[in-house]
């Protein structure tokens, strides 16, 4: 770990190299340890440490960017000089608002020493618990156990100084019972909250119940989505509709329908990077404080997230959602989404279903029609038929194709509890309940 003082010292040094120009510098340091296992043994096991320093120099309305992963003086000077050379030839951007000025940043305590100090042997022993549980039933376990310490530091010539360090641990498994699979995971700041035994138990239950999978014809089914599955569905709204650039360019339904009722009364979705229920980070890559942004309130389209560039265009303040290293054209994105819990439970949802489905999670989801947020993907790791209020059979995996705007208009029930959940792509972490959606559209089926 670099530490706050040393990280900010590096950034001050870079700023001192930026003669005759304004500058913003972002430093990310990542110390990742990760163990993977399959067929009841560990096959990949690694640790890597890397730093990424991005300097953005500014003169008037011209900017230039350079990135290095080495923090010696020679590499830092190379980055500054390269950014300045890029700035000289890049021309002026009429709408460039200048580098943002510092704002008070809220406190987030996201660092847990136990997670940072997790050892390879600790990870192997946790994997062995799941492997042992699978072996005891004559099944195969696959999975991943990772822990990471991430430092983010930002400094600018306008006075921004920000530093945050956080930890994260992710443990997941798939238990294979022939073609039947069962999944479970835990995502947390604090590795002490991960109980490998309970992960194994959850995955084993999904892998072993109702071993004879039946074919179910595509069609519309009342469907209960576990939190894992909902994480994939809600991601599309975040990626495609809740950023200011998509609204400004008219690429999202939020551009046309702000202030209108777009989803069901029971749907309230927001982003809150300061809420400790999420993997909170108090500021973005421009060093701007995270603000709570409500996207949908009681079904009505309310707002989008901003970085400094898109905020200036709409005459508002940044909400702290810049992805500065990816360039201005990437635009702001939500990063800590929440769906408001309801008053139901998963069991109540099952009991209230005459004929429907229970979906554990999805695989390789994508979006063929972004404007209507039409998404598609296949179920995996436990899809079950519900009949007369009871889980009645395992179902071979199905493909869904459905507009998320329409699906979120037909949410019949929402659980009263929510948990932090990661999508299949591992690109979005959201705090989510499980939900029941009426007449969800399944358009295809698989052979397993």
């Amino acid at each position: 770990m670099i530490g706050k003082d040393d990280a900010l010292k590096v950034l001050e040094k870079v700023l001192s190299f930026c003669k005759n120009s304004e500058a913003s510098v972002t430093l990310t340091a990542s110390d990742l340890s990760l163990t993977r296992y399959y067929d009841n043994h560990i096959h990949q096991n690694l640790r890597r440490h890397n730093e990424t320093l991005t300097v953005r120099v500014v003169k008037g309305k011209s900017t230039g960017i350079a990135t290095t992963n080495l923090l010696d003086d020679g590499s830092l000077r190379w980055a500054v000089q390269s950014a300045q050379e890029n700035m000289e030839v890049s021309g002026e951007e009429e709408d460039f608002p200048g580098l943002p000025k510092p704002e008070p940043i809220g406190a987030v305590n996201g660092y847990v020493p136990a997670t940072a100090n997790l050892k390879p042997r600790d990870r192997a022993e946790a994997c062995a618990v799941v492997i042992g549980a699978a072996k005891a039933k004559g099944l195969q376990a696959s999975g991943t156990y990772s822990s990471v310490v991430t430092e983010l530091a930002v400094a600018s010539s306008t006075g921004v100084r920000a530093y945050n360090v956080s930890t994260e641990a992710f443990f997941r498994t798939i238990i294979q019972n022939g073609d039947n699979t069962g999944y479970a995971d835990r995502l947390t700041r604090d590795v002490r909250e991960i109980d490998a035994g309970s992960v194994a138990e959850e995955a084993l239950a999904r892998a072993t119940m109702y071993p004879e999978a039946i074919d179910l014809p595509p069609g519309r089914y009342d469907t209960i989505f576990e939190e894992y599955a909902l994480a994939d569905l809600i991601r599309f709204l975040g990626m495609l509709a809740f950023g200011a650039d998509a609204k400004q360019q008219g690429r999202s339904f939020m551009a046309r329908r702000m202030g209108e009722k777009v989803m069901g009364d029971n749907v309230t979705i927001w982003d809150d990077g300061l809420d400790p229920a999420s993997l909170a980070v108090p500021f973005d890559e421009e060093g701007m404080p995270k603000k709570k942004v409500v996207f949908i309130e009681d079904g009505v389209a309310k707002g989008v997230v901003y970085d400094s560039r898109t905020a200036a265009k709409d005459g508002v303040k940044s909400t702290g959602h810049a992805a500065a290293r990816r360039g201005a054209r990437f635009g702001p994105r939500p990063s800590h989404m929440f769906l408001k819990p309801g008053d139901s439970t998963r069991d109540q949802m099952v009991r209230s279903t005459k004929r429907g489905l229970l979906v554990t999670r999805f695989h390789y989801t994508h979006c063929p029609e972004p404007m209507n947020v039409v998404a598609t993907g296949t179920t995996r790791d436990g899809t079950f038929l519900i009949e007369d209020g009871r889980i009645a059979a395992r179902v071979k995996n199905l493909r869904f194709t459905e507009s998320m705007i329409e699906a979120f208009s037909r949410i019949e029930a929402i659980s009263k509890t929510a948990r932090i959940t990661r999508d299949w792509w591992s690109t979005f972490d959201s705090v989510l309940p499980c939900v029941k959606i009426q007449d969800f559209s399944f358009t295809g089926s698989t052979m397993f």
Partner: protein
Amino acid sequence: MLTELNRILGLAQKLGAEYADARYVSITQQPVSVSTDGAPQLSVSKSVGLGLRVLVDGAWGFSATPYLDPRSLEKTADEAVKIAYASALCKKGDGVSLEPLNPKRARWHTPCKVDPLGVKPEDKIEFLTDVIESAKKVPGVFRATASIMSYREEKEFMSTDGRQVEQTIVHSGGSVSVMARGDGGVQSRSFADYAGGGFEFVESLDLKTKAETLAGEAVSLLKAPACPQGVTDVVMGGSMVALQIHESCGHPIELDRVVGQEATFAGTSFLTPDKKGSFRYGSPCVNIVADATAPGGLGSFGYDDEGIEARRAEIVREGIFTDYLTSRELAPLFDQESNGTMRAVGWENIPLIRMTNINLEPGDWTLDEIIKDTKEGIFVDTPKSWSLDDKRLNFHFGQEIAYEIKDGSLGRMLKNPAYTGMTPEFWNSCDAVAGEDEWRIWGTPGCAKGEPVQVINVGHGAAPARFRKVKAGVGA
């Protein structure tokens, strides 16, 4: 850096490694983009470091560091070996056994006429500005973006079994995308291609002419009817065939997926070992090779990251599935030799079995002949979305544009096309592949796999092709 590589291998052996390999990698990338939406964006990045992979007691450990001083090398070796000892707590039988290799020293460089990082950024901006101007000429264009990617990777590899390889890999590419906005919503058209080679490849793409054509199509799509749902014949442009190969052939032939090593994230494969040599994957006109030696391929290289020579391997011969992409660890389990496909992204990742250039060999049709021979169907091109199940059987692909085909002629333009199907049925319905004149290797720069995710460059030789009786339409 050979001294440092030699040093860290010695350290690893002293600590108990029965095998070790080390890679020093230095990557320089320069993306440049010009848009109607603001000033040109120009950046450069460098990433430098060393990765060490060790086998101890038949179990793997890996550690990586950007620092190459003696203390960092010692720490990295110590960490890799300790990680391997931890892996050995959960190993299978006697653990990993690698296919033996003879010692060898080699060098390789991507053939390249014009160093893409040697071209002045201002010249790239001027080049791209011309492309954008070409798109802007078309009334109704809302936004256009054009970009150039220049990439150079210097890599030195050394292993304890005597392999020592130095490589310079150069990639270049360009893209243009155009957005039109109107009452009918938003429609986009795009073109992108990348190759192993220099700036001469970017110049060969003729982005300026393409930009104007794409702009016209994007505007027309706003008023086009939606692609109807139904079962019909689908004729695909080369870029769509390339992605279809990537997703429904390239991934399922990765042997690490087949044995289950990627089960938790990327998934497994329907191409189980019992199918090798006998399974009818496609129709007799489907011939697929994995060719890491293909000139200009984005998936071409000299040696993989286990020090194995790049090669060409037959994957599907006249429709019959014949082979996998393999590694030194997994190939011997199936009485095979590695066909050299283990690659890592950068210095900080472990090598995985990755696609090289997975090519559908050319047929003997032309696109014109295929369309003339089609009574009713659609012509689709340019991938917009892609989704497959975790065994790579059921797929759904969306495209940017389609045209009706009626009685052997292209008809109306259609927006939001898509098709869906099952991999073996789909490839068995292929009855026409265009010939060499319309065949090219499409660069696919975004292939994601592994945990942590590694995004690598691969290539796909493809020509337009026809598939019979396919379910078309987004909600089909």
